[in-house]
């Protein structure tokens, strides 16, 4: 243990301090951070109490790691498991490179093992955390293969921004050009204009700002589950997941007597996250026609500067639809390491065994059914 540090479990006594501490990572706004902490850890339907580990020195928080619960289902018929995902790693800049991440994680592994957890997952690791996690015994199951659709304006800007910054006259306007390229309407504005439009191409498609948990739950039950590992997306999940105060969501519903499909768009609202990007975090439909209609409705809403989706486990038919409308793989300009599935056995004595749930291998992407909505950081 590095000198003078203690690792403790979160309790409400630390709420205000965590809210302030996370101004480095969540948002600079205390009120928003308070809502986020409350939603993500207190209201999480799958864990009775927040699983947050804090490193303290001289009575001050200098490091944090949170664990968020979710139900995973696997197999046919499906069996349900409670899983925990490692989130919100933050070490105070003045306390980095002192082995704190390692100590926080060691403490969390011991605690999770005593609670009966076998595995811990990470779906959100940014490059720095990613390599650090591998050094802590996490293993990579592979990339989520993000695919990108750019507006022509934003694509041009991304290809030329370095040149613009170096040009004699134009560098003065680089900031304005960036704003022009990144400009977009917000999802609430797009939702209103979609519903006002008399020229909507498809009368089956509705845009709303709120989820329909019961109908979405019913739809998921009607679509066959192939047994791969996935989140249990039921009424409880849908009711909680989209209350995330750090993001806004737009729901496109394809209805005919009942819900036949939905597509969920997400935008980030805090300065510390990518506000240009809009993500397709979930997309389901009872037929190719429904899926195709929803996708076209999403891209016709607005020429989003940057629209993202993960395709690693989507299946060839959906991937083909995405390719047809212009989605393509990212390059190093988007990220050095793509978002990656990380898994670790909680107990050290399981490190050399094969990691699996109900016979499905946790390090084989073919055994997973991932959606961006599973990740809290997209």
């Amino acid at each position: 243990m590095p000198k003078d540090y203690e690792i403790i479990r979160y309790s409400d006594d630390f709420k205000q301090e965590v809210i302030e501490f996370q101004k480095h990572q969540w948002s600079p706004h205390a009120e928003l951070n308070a809502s986020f902490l409350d939603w993500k850890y207190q209201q999480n339907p799958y864990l009775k109490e927040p699983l947050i580990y804090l490193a303290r020195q001289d009575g001050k928080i200098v490091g944090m790691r949170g664990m968020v619960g979710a139900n995973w289902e696997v197999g046919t018929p499906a069996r349900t498991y409670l899983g925990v995902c490692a989130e919100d790693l933050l070490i105070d800049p003045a306390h980095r490179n002192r082995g704190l991440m390692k100590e926080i994680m060691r403490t969390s592994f011991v605690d999770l093992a005593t609670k009966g957890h076998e595995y811990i997952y990470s779906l959100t690791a940014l490059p720095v955390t990613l390599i650090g996690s591998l050094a802590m015994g996490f293993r990579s199951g592979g990339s989520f293969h993000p695919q990108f659709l750019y507006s022509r304006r934003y694509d041009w800007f991304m290809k030329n921004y370095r040149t613009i910054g170096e040009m004699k006259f134009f560098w003065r306007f680089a900031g304005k050009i960036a704003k022009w390229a990144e400009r977009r309407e917000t999802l609430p504005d797009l939702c209103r204009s979609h519903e006002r439009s008399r020229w909507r191409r498809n009368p089956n498609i509705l845009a709303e700002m709120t989820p329909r948990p019961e109908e979405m739950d019913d739809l998921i039950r009607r679509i066959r589950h192939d047994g791969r590992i996935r989140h249990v997306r039921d009424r409880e999940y849908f009711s909680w997941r989209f209350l995330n105060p750090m993001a806004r969501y737009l729901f496109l519903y394809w209805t005919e007597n009942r819900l036949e499909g939905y597509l969920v768009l997400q935008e980030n609202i805090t300065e510390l996250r990518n506000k240009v990007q809009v993500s397709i975090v979930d997309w389901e439909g009872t037929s190719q026609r429904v899926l195709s209609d929803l996708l076209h409705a999403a891209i016709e809403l607005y020429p989003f500067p940057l629209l993202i989706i993960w395709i690693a486990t989507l299946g060839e038919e959906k991937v083909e639809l995405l390719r047809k409308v212009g989605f393509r793989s990212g390059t190093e300009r988007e990220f050095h390491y793509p978002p990656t599935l990380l898994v670790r056995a909680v107990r050290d004595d399981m490190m050399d065994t094969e990691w699996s749930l109900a016979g499905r291998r946790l390090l084989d992407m073919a055994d997973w059914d991932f959606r961006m909505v599973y990740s809290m950081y997209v």
Partner: protein
Amino acid sequence: MSLREELVNLLDDGKVDPELYLTDDTPLISSGQIDSLALFNLALWIEKETNAMLDLTTLDPLKEWDTIADILDFVERKRG
């Protein structure tokens, strides 16, 4: 500057204990001497030296990069 000297300079910048003298066998990761940012910088350095992206699905930094000797051996193998 030799490859080893370059590596030692990089690790000196990121190690926990500035007084620690790094030998070829000093445990770096298992001892907690280098943290996530230093590890990330090490990963970038290795990619530069091997002129190849790391394969994260097979990478085990604790086994393959725990000492200077391990890291130099890893680079040599990847250059192979």
